[in-house]
């Protein structure tokens, strides 16, 4: 049946058809929809969980695979750094049931803190990598990844990028499922990593790498089309850009090779497309993985072939590629002029940086902490999530942001060097469970006076409202006990923990001042649901008789529902969700709740 599917949905449905028994992961753009789609289309016999973080997801999957289950773990590229410890050891220990790590890379980056290339993780971990170039290819290729994993008893990395994950395309979907009945765990010393076992594992990896490279050289998705003395070696979405660029340039005499399996590198396949070639141009986003492999092949076999790519300065080393990137590099190497697209000079346009939503409770939390610290030296460490947007003016409340969970620990380092300064660490509820626990223990144990502010909106908002351990919902549709953030903080050694509703300004302000006065590490839980989840509300309204037009509300809060047109402050009634923060801070008392008839 023909269906219009997002790449992530295609991967999920392909995995269901491949007989996956367990899927675990942690949300992260652009990977999140994969696991959600498995959960939404669960035939009933697949165990699906959002794990507390990527490392937990990887290890849960490892256990299930030891027991013979086919497993898939999903995450974004930076998540693989979190799970790397587990994955690198698992490569040595090996697996039983097919083990596929789907890790989504984000050239651009569009929604990430790095442009790391997960193909390099494959090289580093000595694990094979599949790199699909379209949603349709991803749909079919995911089953090959499970089969390869089982054939060689090692985990396999499946690496789509944003333009595969979030592209939608029509593809032929069938519901024919392979079923896999897990055999159950059989005790064996091979499941215990020891130096001797690691040495054997390393030898095994080295040996199977050669066999997989040979398999990949015959793999159908590694393909060659066209003819010419010049060859393009392309991968992922860049391959599709090359096809369009060749159309644009009038189909010059060029051979186009697609490399769907960058590591272990299919050397025999490369030798076949390098025949009768004078030069090869590498078109790949992120790192020059294929380029370096081809340089090795050319050197090893003494081939008189020039290799163009990032290392020769012909293609950019950072950022997302496009048809324009690829065609400009091609035209330059071919020495031809591209058809010029005459564009008029565009007028200056308003900037639209992303902002916290109207009624986002994080705005209130940031505003109140800022006011409580007025006149004191204070540093505000931030973390990964919607609340990173607290860095924007007028709030300007994120001074550092490094990686998941780092706010709490970076604040500790800052405090050790600047002990006279106040140090706040903002962290979201999902991030707290994913990566904040160790840092909290560290602050308590080392008696570092920081104030941890858990921004608890009861969801993983940035990536699309996934549940987490504090929400009490699971991906199997069950209700579990909510893990209490306040009890967790106490248990981790924080002796001052207060829960406040940030939209209740006076009480929250008093709590912040108590936390500042507390002599050791303390915590505030700012608890109020994500504004996107609020469905019923009464907007606020300006009482024009009282409003002086001072714009204090706009200048302090930066709420997108507050606007000034022709000197008059207005509240957009479509956007305002009635958080009533502005009503509490207006110096004229001019912002009021709209009283509806029911009230």
């Amino acid at each position, binding site marked *: 049946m023909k269906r*219009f599917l997002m790449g992530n949905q295609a991967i999920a449905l392909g995995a269901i058809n491949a007989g996956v028994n367990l899927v675990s992961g942690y949300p992260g753009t*652009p990977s999140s929809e994969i696991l959600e789609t498995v959960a939404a289309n669960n035939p009933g016999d697949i165990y699906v969980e959002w794990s507390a973080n990527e490392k937990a997801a990887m290890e849960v999957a490892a256990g299930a695979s030891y027991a013979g289950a086919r497993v898939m773990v999903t995450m974004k590229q930076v998540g693989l750094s979190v799970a790397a410890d587990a994955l690198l050891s698992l490569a040595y220990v090996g697996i039983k049931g097919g083990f596929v790590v789907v890790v989504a890379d984000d050239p651009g980056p569009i929604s990430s803190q790095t442009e790391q290339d997960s193909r390099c993780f494959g090289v580093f971990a000595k694990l094979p990598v599949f790199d699909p170039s379209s949603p349709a290819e991803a749909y079919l290729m995911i089953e090959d990844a499970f089969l390869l994993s089982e054939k060689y008893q090692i985990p396999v990395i499946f690496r789509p990028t944003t333009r595969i994950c979030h592209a*939608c395309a029509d593809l032929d979907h069938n519901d024919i499922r392979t079923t896999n009945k897990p055999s159950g765990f059989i005790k064996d010393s091979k499941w215990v990593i020891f130096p001797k076992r690691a040495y054997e594992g390393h030898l095994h990896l080295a040996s199977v790498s050669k066999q997989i490279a040979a398999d990949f050289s015959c793999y159908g998705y590694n393909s060659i089309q066209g003819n010419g003395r010049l060859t393009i070696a392309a991968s992922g979405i860049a391959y599709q850009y090359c096809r369009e660029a060749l159309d644009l340039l009038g189909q010059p005499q060029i051979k186009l090779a697609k490399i769907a399996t960058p590591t272990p590198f299919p050397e025999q396949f490369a030798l076949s497309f390098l025949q009768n070639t004078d030069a090869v141009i590498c078109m790949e986003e992120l790192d020059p993985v294929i380029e370096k492999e081809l340089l090795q092949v050319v050197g090893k076999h003494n081939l008189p072939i020039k290799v163009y790519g990032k290392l020769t300065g012909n293609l950019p080393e950072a950022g997302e590629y496009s048809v324009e990137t690829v065609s400009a590099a091609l035209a330059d190497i071919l020495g031809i002029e591209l058809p010029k697209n005459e564009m008029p000079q*565009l007028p200056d*346009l308003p900037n639209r940086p*992303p902002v916290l939503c109207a009624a986002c409770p994080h705005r209130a939390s940031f505003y109140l902490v800022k006011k409580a610290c007025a006149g004191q030296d204070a540093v505000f460490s931030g973390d990964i999530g919607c609340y990173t947007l607290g860095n924007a003016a007028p709030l300007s409340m994120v001074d550092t942001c490094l990686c998941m969970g780092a706010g709490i620990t970076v604040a500790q380092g800052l405090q050790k060097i600047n002990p006279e300064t106040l140090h706040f660490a903002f962290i979201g509820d999902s991030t707290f469970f994913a990566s904040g626990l160790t840092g909290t223990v560290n602050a308590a144990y080392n008696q570092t006076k920081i104030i941890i502010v858990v921004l608890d909106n009861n969801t993983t908002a940035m990536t699309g409202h996934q549940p987490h351990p504090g929400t009490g919902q699971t991906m199997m549709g069950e209700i579990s006990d909510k893990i209490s953030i306040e009890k967790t903080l106490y248990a981790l050694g924080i002796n001052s923990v207060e829960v406040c509703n940030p939209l209740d300004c006076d009480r929250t302000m008093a709590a912040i001042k108590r936390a500042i006065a507390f002599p050791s590490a303390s915590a505030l839980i700012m608890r109020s649901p994500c504004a996107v989840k609020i469905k019923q509300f009464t907007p606020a309204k300006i009482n024009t008789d009282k409003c002086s037009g001072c714009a204090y509300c*706009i200048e302090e809060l930066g709420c997108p529902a507050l606007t000034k047109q022709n000197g008059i402050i207005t509240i957009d009634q479509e956007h305002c969700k009635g958080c009533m923060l502005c009503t509490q801070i207006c110096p004229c008392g001019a912002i009021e709740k709209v009283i509806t008839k029911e009230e």
Partner: protein
Amino acid sequence: MSGFNCIIVGVGGQGTVLASKLLAQAAINKGWHAATAETIGMAQRGGTVVGHLKCGEHIFSPLLALGTADLLIGFEPAETVRALPYLKNGGAIVVNKTPVMPFDPDSKYSGSAELGFLRQQVAKLYIADGDLICQNCGTGKVLNIALLGEAVRAGFLPFSIMDLEVAMEQMLPEKLIAINIKAINGTKNKNIV
């Protein structure tokens, strides 16, 4: 038909994503291939959203190259101007005339200069009053569908109103179909609920 390329632009929350998916479904119903891609993630929170739609017999990447869009549907004026480099020579524009104010209390933006610029640059330009249709429907949430209807009536889409109604029935939850069918038909039948 060899292909039809469309760019749909707006500000996060305006419903551009659903609009491009609906057109893709209409294309698939005609037996064409379709692909879409859009900005998802942090940029959604009040930022510019650009949706790419390709329909036709051969589709490679989901993204449009600059200068290749047959149609640009802009949900507000400034974003439409920003996306103008995607429009091909002789391409058409449907733009909603109401501006979405940026978050900048000192902004002088009103949309009129941008609409003037589009008038100068583009012959096939239709300036739509999507908000009037929304008022008739009693909700601002149907702006996306209202603008698709305007694009059909301007003669800029290779689909009929009925094609889009069929796609809506396939894609939307049942309770939203009536209001969106009203929106896609514009102001011409404002008395019919």
